[in-house]
């Protein structure tokens, strides 16, 4: 069992959720309630990671993060390290390939809140931040929780993009999924099986817990 890889995976998943929670909330609310020209294109772009082969997405991210790209150059100038094959690059890639897993459940949850309920909150004198915390966030909580769990477990299991952008640097970019692959390549099937089982059980428990906690409430207005 490669505990370092396992710890790195948990760290990457936690950071990805931490970054995507506020970002996803903002984007999901925008898409749910504020129609704008070109929304369908934005939604299509956000859903791309669901259908693109991870190697294709990984390839583009590798190019976009590389030393010859503007982003890569700025990052290197600021930190002295390359964005590719680093934990920061891995985190950025993870945030991008998890966008649909975070945003779509949240968007559906916000869309399910009746417009009049939000309007009623405003008519009750609640300031916007209070409407968000007291009404919107609470009612959308099942979707938000689902988004967080999906993002977490999907990050734990992602392989293709991680390999393309981060490679397999122990303690830096080698996640548990990469470690399993490395073990198989080294004919250490027992080691691979242990880690695969840990990943399987962890993912299963997380999703089951999310389903149990986030069972949709009996939202009945009127």
């Amino acid at each position, binding site marked *: 069992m490669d505990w370092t890889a396992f710890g790195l995976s948990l760290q990457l998943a936690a950071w990805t959720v931490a970054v995507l929670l506020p970002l996803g909330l903002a984007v999901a609310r925008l898409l749910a309630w504020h129609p704008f020209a070109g929304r369908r294109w934005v939604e299509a772009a956000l859903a791309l990671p669901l259908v693109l082969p991870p190697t294709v997405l990984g390839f583009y991210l590798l190019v976009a993060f590389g030393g010859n790209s503007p982003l890569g150059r700025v990052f290197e100038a600021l930190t002295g390290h390359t964005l590719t094959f680093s934990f920061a690059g891995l985190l950025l890639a993870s945030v991008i390939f998890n966008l649909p897993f975070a945003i779509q459940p949240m968007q559906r949850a916000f869309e399910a809140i009746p417009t*009049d309920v939000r*309007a009623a909150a405003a*008519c*009750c004198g*609640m300031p916007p931040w*209070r409407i968000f915390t007291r009404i919107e966030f609470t009612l959308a909580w099942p979707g938000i929780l689902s988004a967080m769990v999906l993002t977490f477990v999907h990050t734990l299991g992602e392989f293709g993009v991680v390999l393309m952008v981060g490679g397999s640097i122990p303690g830096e970019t080698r996640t548990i999924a990469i470690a399993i692959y490395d073990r198989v390549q080294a004919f250490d099937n027992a080691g691979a099986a242990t880690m695969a089982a840990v990943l399987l059980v962890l993912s299963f428990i997380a999703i089951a817990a999310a389903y149990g906690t986030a069972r949709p409430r009996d939202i009945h207005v009127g």
Partner: protein
Amino acid sequence: MRLAQRAPIPLDATLHCAPGETHALVGPSGSGKTTILRCIAGLHGAREGRIACDGAVWYDAAARIDVPPQARSAGLVFQHYALFPHLSAQANVEAALGHLPVRDRAARAIALLARVHLTGLEARKPAQLSGGQQQRVAVARALARDPQVLLLDEPFAAVDRVTRQKLYRELTALRRSLALPIVLVTHDLDEAAMLSDRMTILHRGRTLQTGTPRELMTRPADPLVARLVDMKNVFEARVVTAAPGTTGVAWNGTLLEVAGVPRFAVGARVCFGLPVTGVLLHRRDRPSRGEHENPVDGTVAECLEIGEDMHMGMRVDGAPALLWLKVPVHVAQRNRIAAGETIRVSLLADALHLMPWRDLARDVPA
């Protein structure tokens, strides 16, 4: 309140509601009633217009004033109540008590729920309440901010008939105890007539006429309003005589006498309206009092028994539409009135109402 815009929803509306007055906004679906209510609450902004309440300007398009809903002192009861489904009845009311210190909110919410007869149900969530109870929570929540205006958007649409009758009585009692203007949106004319002091008829975003329910029901400003208040008898005629206190109109070869100060010149093409209660059925066995008042003969074409009344559509030779009247069912039975029978009626001169001519085929509401 004055509002005007062409899109997305056409509006050309003026409304004034005095403190203590219940003012009904009535019109068919899609006539803009709810949009006007939402404009007053600050949930929608018209392109042009001005909304003021008790001296405070809430909206003025020209002066770029648009007070947010949070800062408008308006209590709004939504059509489907829009209660917060995850909060108890008490918490729903407390949510609108942000202007009070935290320690005072619970007591105030309980008192408001008691006022709408919901004592003992404070802990229930909306899904655990009946439609009528949900409506009461919505009213209590709307009153929680001590609003300067109470806005009711089809508040009885989602409850059954028995509950509705009960809620009518409760609202009538409640409005007596409130000295604030109440704007009631409804498409139900009977409901509006029963609950309001004044009514405004709305059609395609335009306010057509404002008056007491009786004025609107018996003296519509034009044939369109007459149609919208469901006046069944609207016909075209021509003025043939005009004398102090009476106007003579020719209708279908018959001279009808219309009481009141003449408003139209001789020769003018007009429409006239007549409530069904303004058509008097003559008895067959002996002459009725007033049988010489605009007598008209015809054949019963339709008989509809609605409750305790018999509504009859009478075909008058040459008239393009049926003339409707209603009598108690027992009167219809005693006079053996049925489809195909010939009857004589009087069109009461006091009930006849002349209006400017308008093509009756235009703007026929659904």
